[in-house]
């Protein structure tokens, strides 16, 4: 979003009221849409937007390519679910614990992997998520706690119980995820305009030069990774509470990791709106194709879509769709601005 160089809030400036209108629309959507399946799609769109924004901390700001990021969502989902099933701990708290554990895991894997160069890092992140999935699939019990391996875990149905992070209607989930998206977006915005943001960009573009300027690049990448892993875990819990069933191939999978990465990159990695744009354009596309093309042959149709688009994007629009989107946006805002 363009910075208003004037510094004060000018309600007539389209740079202010267009985003506000967009926000208003987002708030009002559940009041207008009553169909359950469409609401589900909306919730998923926002969920993916949050995932891509979280990915963006590492994949965009820090300049590395994590291709196995769903691992952290998986950690979060499993931690909160296990705590809930075995100890009755409300997922609201379990979510935060999952976040902390996810950060610890991230630091554990981050310290050795950040020493690796681009493609090696991507490979390592892929190996890690696959390893995590395989280990989980093959484990029935850890320390006596039932994990159920590949069969997954069912979250006990409690009906509409807000304290237990379960809601009877999608509309509640919608507002929760919307709030999360705004939070993560806000944090992205703040980071981009802060020392952390500048240092991450520097470390990502020219590590040697950055270090000669006093930047401990690894430390800052780890900070970005921790923030990212924390939110990914929370989003994992959200998903668990939304569908009430988690299993390794679903939440800590390579294909989800790729989906997130592709969406963020197609939208525009490293930018603020890019990941959101990616989610908002690709998820509806995928859901629509799923509705019209069904059958086991088309199980991967959404993946085919994402991957073919990313091939095209890499060939013709490496900076992502956000480039084209910005041109259209500025065109409109300039016209609107001239009018007022």
């Amino acid at each position, binding site marked *: 979003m363009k910075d208003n160089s004037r510094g004060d809030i000018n309600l007539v400036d389209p740079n202010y009221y267009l985003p506000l209108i967009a926000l208003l629309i987002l708030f009002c959507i559940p009041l207008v849409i009553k169909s359950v399946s469409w609401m589900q799609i909306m919730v998923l769109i926002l969920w993916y937007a949050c995932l891509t924004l979280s990915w963006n901390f590492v994949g965009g700001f820090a300049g590395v390519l994590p291709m196995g990021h769903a691992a952290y969502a998986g950690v979060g989902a499993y931690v909160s679910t296990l705590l809930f099933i075995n100890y009755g701990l409300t997922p609201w708290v379990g979510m935060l614990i999952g976040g902390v554990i996810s950060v610890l895991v991230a630091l554990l894997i981050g310290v050795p992997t950040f020493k690796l*160069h681009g493609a090696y890092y991507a490979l390592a992140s892929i190996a890690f998520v696959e390893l995590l999935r395989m280990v989980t699939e093959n484990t029935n019990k850890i320390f006596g706690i039932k994990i159920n391996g590949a069969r997954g875990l069912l979250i006990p149905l409690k009906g509409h119980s807000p304290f237990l992070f379960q809601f009877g209607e999608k509309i509640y989930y919608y507002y929760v995820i919307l709030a999360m998206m705004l939070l993560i977006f806000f944090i992205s915005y703040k980071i981009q305009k802060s020392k952390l943001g500048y240092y991450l960009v520097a470390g990502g573009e020219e590590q040697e030069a950055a270090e000669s300027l006093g930047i401990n690049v690894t430390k800052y990448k780890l900070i970005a990774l921790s923030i990212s892993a924390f939110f990914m875990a929370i989003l994992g819990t959200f998903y668990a509470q939304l569908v009430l069933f988690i299993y390794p191939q679903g939440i800590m999978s390579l294909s989800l990791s790729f989906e997130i990465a592709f969406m963020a990159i197609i939208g525009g990695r490293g930018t603020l709106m890019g990941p959101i744009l990616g989610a908002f354009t690709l998820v509806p596309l995928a859901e629509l194709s799923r509705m019209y093309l069904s059958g086991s042959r088309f199980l991967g149709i959404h993946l085919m879509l994402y991957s073919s688009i990313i091939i095209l994007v890499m060939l013709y629009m490496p900076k992502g769709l956000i480039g084209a989107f910005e041109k259209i946006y500025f065109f409109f805002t300039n016209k609107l601005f001239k009018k007022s």
Partner: protein
Amino acid sequence: MEAIINGVLMGGVYGLTALGLSLIFGVMKVINFAHGSHLMIMMYVEYCLIKSIGIDPYLSLLIVLPIAYTIGYFTQAILINPILKAEKDVREPLGVLLLTAGLWIFLNNFFLMLFGANFKSADTIYSNTVLKINKMMISKPLLYAFLASLITTYLLNWLLRKTKLGKAIRATGQDREAASLMGINVYKIYNIAFGIGIAALGVAGTILIPLFYVHPFVGDVFDMRAFVIVVLGGLGSIPGALLGGLLVGVIESLAGHFLNMTWAAAVIYMIFLLALFIKPSGMFGFEKEW
């Protein structure tokens, strides 16, 4: 003991699949994530050939190899070279990485759409035949596959070390600018190298038909093994790929013997991560910036 031998044989085959990846990386510094998908494609090609003409896999190599080479050549020329050209000055060409990752997913799911998820198998005269030595049962197709792998590795090594083309390829891999100053058309070499890499997969696909079912995701298993091998054996080293393959094959076989097959896979991944952390350039690879 039987496990070790099986491991060695299978390892040879793994090494073969990794050859192409190693070569492609050694020359272009590109990690082809879609490697497994190309193997899958070659297996489907082979399968179709057998089903339609009923030709013996090893004979069909005559048809398969040119097809494989062409596919590889054009993949590089049309998809990868443009990005390499655009990212010429960037130290880490991540665009190619993403492209190959996208290609991987695309090809897998595309073939899912074309052929369905059913496991297909093609029988040849010698599928399921077994050789008995002492008390061990060794699958004959596996043995043939191993021999084919060895021969191919040897041929490829000879190509790279003794022929003019091979030297041009190695020169390009070592120093792109110097090579182009010597009159080598760098991008054409890339195309050729990629073609050769996929041709190696063509051989692999052919010899694997009697051993494995064909389905859209069969390539993924080999893909990850290939990455592990290439990292262990050294990116760009042909003998390293074979040795790495043997190592992986044996470890996997032993792990499968003492634990179970899925844990064996997990063990491989763990070793992969350890290898990456300790020595990213592998046992025989070039000590480069990478």
